[in-house]
């Protein structure tokens, strides 16, 4: 009985997330915004939570397993690697170099700028 109850709560939470996603997609389509629907959906839910002043139990029950196992949801896209043999033979090394160097420099720049500004702000306060 308890397990059944938990599943119902989970399903209800999923339904709420789905509604937010669908509204997000409708907004994006209606206003022709170049941003994905789910991102808008996330901002919508954030706004609703700020307005409510708390997180409904149902919603957090559905969110936790999704967030904990997000990696599972990336696998279908990653398997797409198998269809790109020819292109990767010609340009794979260049693509990899470009991805690797820019990602590492970007990470480095990000934490440097953030840490610098945060310390400066704290000194001013």
């Amino acid at each position: 009985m308890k397990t059944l109850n938990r599943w119902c709560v989970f399903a209800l939470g999923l339904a709420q997330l789905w509604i937010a996603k669908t509204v997000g997609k409708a907004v994006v389509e209606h206003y022709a915004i170049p941003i994905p629907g789910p991102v808008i959906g996330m901002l919508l839910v954030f706004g609703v939570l700020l307005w409510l002043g708390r997180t409904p139990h149902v919603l957090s029950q559905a969110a936790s397993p999704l967030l904990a196992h997000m990696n599972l949801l990336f696998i279908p896209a990653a398997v797409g690697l198998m269809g790109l043999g020819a292109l990767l033979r010609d340009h794979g090394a260049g693509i990899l170099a470009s991805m690797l160097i820019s990602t590492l420099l970007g990470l480095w720049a990000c934490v440097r700028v953030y840490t610098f500004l945060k310390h400066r702000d704290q000194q001013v306060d």
Partner: protein
Amino acid sequence: MVLSAQTAIWIACTAGVYALALQLYRRANSAPYLHPVVTSSAVIIAVLIGLNETYANFQAATHLLSEALELATVAIAIPLYHERHRLVALWRPFIIALIGATIVNLTVAFVVGKVCQLNQVSLMSVMTKSVTTPVAIGISDLIGGDSSLVAVIVISTGIIGAVLGPWLLRRSGVEDPVAIGLALGTLSHGVGTARAFQIHPTAGAFAGLSMAICAILTSLLLPSLMTALLG
């Protein structure tokens, strides 16, 4: 959407492989090269090739997982809400670092791509690398990339950031969960966010927010940046 036998089999297979990959990853103390996305996809690619099955079939069968990814994206609002006070306090360094990192990221990707003499399609696809997959595909359509290449590049960038990011940040002496989340979310979107949640809940929430802002920023910035760089 039809829930066919194929759908059930391939999703069960993917989930099973993922569960084993996760066990392996945990037993190996989160060794970066055993990131579950890397090991699971390697196994599944081997299985598909072994069974002489096409990627298109697998992709169609596991469509439900991609749908769930959209719900997971919405779900990031919840940890974000828990971090609202910190968000108000830190928004200025947060936004400036995010914009700075995005510009460095895009410019370096372009320059290295040019130096490596990438063809136009590959170069445009690489430029979308740090935004979450659905946005990346949208932008790539605007600037002339290839959407299946984009999907792979985006995931690979995510993995590079999730694998090397925590190592680089630890070496640079960064322990602030906000900084870790910001860097992983900005440079490695959802895969980085998943990694950030494993490090610290605060890091995960900020990674999710950074991913969202980076997606918005890049879709506004990239088309004009491409005109500037190419012109």
